[in-house]
């Protein structure tokens, strides 16, 4: 599998580390509700088809990427850098 890193270009999967489900929203840092944390840390859907996930470009630029990958075919339909997504919302 190859991932087209927005900074580094197309790279082999071995340069990246899978970093979890990107649809899970981490509760606020000061949220005390254990159920919300339980859901964030443990509960996962297992979709057949499109899956949004984080990949860390560990052997390259070390950005985190949000990748939409088809869990059946491994075809990747989109790659975005988290940094770029955040820039949109943060600034």
């Amino acid at each position: 599998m190859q991932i087209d890193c927005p900074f580094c270009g197309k790279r082999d999967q071995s340069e990246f580390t899978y970093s979890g489900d990107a649809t899970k929203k981490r509760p606020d840092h000061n949220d005390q509700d254990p159920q919300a944390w339980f859901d964030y840390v443990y509960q996962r859907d297992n979709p057949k088809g499109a899956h949004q996930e984080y990949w860390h470009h560990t052997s390259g630029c070390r950005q985190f990427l949000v990748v939409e990958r088809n869990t059946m075919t491994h075809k990747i339909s989109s790659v975005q850098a988290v940094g770029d997504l955040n820039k949109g919302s943060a600034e």
Partner: protein
Amino acid sequence: MSGYRLTSDTGATPVSFKFNGKTYQGVQGDTLASALLANGVTLVGRSFKYHRPRGIFSAGSEEPNAAVNVVRGDELEPNTLATTLEIYNGLEAKSQNCWPSVDFDVNAINSLLSPIFVAGFYYKTFMGTSNKHWMFFEKHIRKAAGMGEASVTADSSRYEKQNVFCDVLIVGAGPAGISAALTQAATGARVVLADENAQMGGALIGSTQEIAGQDGDGWVREQLEKLKTFDNVKLLPRTTVYGYYDNNTFGAVERVSDHLTTSEAKGKIRQRHLVLKSKKVILATGALERPILFGDNDRPGVMLASAVGKYVKRYGVVPGREIVMFTNNDSIYQEIAELGARNVPIKAVVDLRDTLSDYAAAVKEKYNLRIYHNAAVVRAVGGKALKSVILNNGETLTCDVLGVSGGWTPTIHLQSQQGDKPVYDETICSFLPGMGHQDYVSIGACKGSFDLSACLSEGGLAEVRVEDEPSLNILPVFDIETTKGKKFVDLQHDVKTSDIKLAKQEGFLSVEHLKRYTTLGMANDQGKTANVNALVVMSKERQLPITEVGTTRFRPPYAPVSIGALSGGEYGEHFRPTRRTPMHEWHLDHGAEMINAGAWVRPRVYKKAGETVTDAYIREAAAVRESVGMVDVTSLGKIEVIGPDAPEFLNRVYTNAWLKLPVGKARYGVMLREDGHVFDDGTTWRLEENRFLMTTTTANAANVLTHLEFLLDVIWPELKVKVVSVTEQWAGLAIAGPNSRAVLAKALHDVDMSNEAFPFMAVQDAKLGDIPVKVARLSFSGELAYEVWCPSHYGYAMWDQLYQAGQDFNITPYGTEALGTLRIEKGHISGPELDGRTTVDDLDLGWAWGKKDFVGKPLAGRDGMVDEDRLKLVGLVSKEEKAIRPGSQIVLSNAETTLGVSQGHVTSTTYSPALGKYIALALVKNGRNKIGETVYATYPLKNESQAVEIVKPHFFDPDGSRMHV
């Protein structure tokens, strides 16, 4: 059988080789198969199950029979195909799967028992009986099973791997592939053209068919010369592209020196594993001829008709003196024409069809052929060599070669590997590639275009003129009715039509079940000449059209790949990289025995003459507490945390408080995972207001960095913090013991080493000669101790200068064993206690629990995480003066030492020189409330157990006074 060479005057260099101990002559360019045929050799091996005599069936990598052992020095390489092995002077090959010889094979007796050795034999015979029966027969069956014999010596060849990127990858250099290469090269694209053969040209090699006014060889030579003028073209002969993976990625093996003599090959790479990535792919993989099934169709001398043609055209070798051809289609007449052009006589043609096409009629006329119409071969006669064939009309034709053509099977393995479902085509009675998922096209014979003109035009050269050629005109008869003799479908795995019938009878209807139950198509040849005929037999049995029987999916590799090639150059010292500290050579020069800590290499102990590892670490640990020692700690992870929000960030990731840490001070920190378990620990130093240096354990350095990067990149992008790994920037050592201060006071300048000026946990800059150093007063050993760090290139000099300065105090270098002993004596946790299942409270670090929010806090409060009955950190002291084995389970009574309920386990153990006892750290259920109790540490795998006393984990100097002097 008497094969012979057309002319001895070929101009080619003679080559001498050995087969089954006998020396033969061949010529440069021969394969072992063509050379053996030229020498009149018929019998080359014995079949897998029945040990039936077998000869050469094909002229390529689809060969099911002629697999041999090749002797390479001390090594024996099994399962090498004689049909692809290029001979060289000194080649030594032997038949396999036969004993004592291929001529007289004891196991041929299996053939008599063949009614018993049917599909599902093992299952039917041994299922339901006790395991004892199977275990008794297993060793004998194992000895009789298998094909070649594997070598037991290490492979001395050199292999390597390489990555190749291109715009267009073309697999197959027959007419279609070569045309495509020329067309693509002209666009300026980076083109790679690969072919499994040494010679490119495919079916055009040796062909007399006119193409652009030349014969096959002439045209191919001209095109290859043209291709060599492009510097954007890479030609890869002798390269099998074996696997098609996602993103147009391919695996291939290039046989670099397999065809050279032992001395020519010396020092050279033997095989090169290539990973090819291409934007576009053109598959021009051709087609393989398929046989017709009839009685005893496996006799040596029964061959594919096109193989007969290939040996004549490509190698100038005629496989026999009396050749009969058997066909259901017109392609055989093209081969016959090629043979005729070289004056090779054909005794007769047995044609299943009733009429001849114009093309076939012309060939018959020109070469005066005797043709039997509406005729079939029902049985081949002969044991170790073909003697004759029996026709359906009862007539017997003597012959030593029977060339069989049952049509052509497009080679669609690569297409199928990446999920393409093949589509049955009535006009060729075989399967074509279906819809692909990836960016590739199929051209030429592999997509059913068997005409040369179609191949050329699909490759982009439509304008090239070729001489007339026949259409396939196939009659779909592949399986001749007969009651006599065995009809083999899969020659390599000895699977017969009767096995397929049996499978269907027993309910294994699906093609996937058929394959696995009969093992059809599962040998090294992957059923290349068997699969489609098997579907024909199955479809007849099940009375279904062949399209409904289904196909199995091809898996890589297309042809066997050696493990050596897959490993590339990564063996021995190149298996994985080694990470060395700047003091590495010093350690080796001073007797260090090294140990791996991940990629790092660290001193384990510094052995003196006559010492065991245990002697050494006891001496080292004692010396530290007695006077002073030094240990290389360069491998610890170090991360700079920089920015105005750095204190807040540290406050969120560590359990304890960070906002008020003064500049120039260090603090111990504990980090949790999101699920509340302890992740890592270390010390973090505040170098400047907004600059911290975080240390981590060696093992977790990369994980902690990733954890921090994730939090900053994804979760808290609003925090103004940067993290930078500086592990490699700094070389470090710990100097520990009552005289550590004295050594540093002597060696360092620009720093006040007194207790008042340099309190516990302070960090200061200093100079060691000309070397700038950072000194932190931290203690892992529990002694008065300091860490001294310098920029890495100075590391060796720093270490050596301090070692020299410490001579007056008998300074002792110590390794990871003594490092462990010292911290265990103090009850300090490390890797073995941070196993991902422990909490802050379990490890007695409750003092580090902050009031603020931090990563992991919410889930650390779950009932199961705070249960008093959890395993808690305690110390153990041996009551029997025996070493306590790490990993031992704790049980409450002596009666439970072989079978009992575990109360916990031992994590770290050592002999303690300070206490004169064997001690350990352990995690024990409700351990903190069991201080003083005697329990048992048991290790049933080694039948060891002993009584131990539970104590507080801080064995030595529990108030920690020694660090504060």
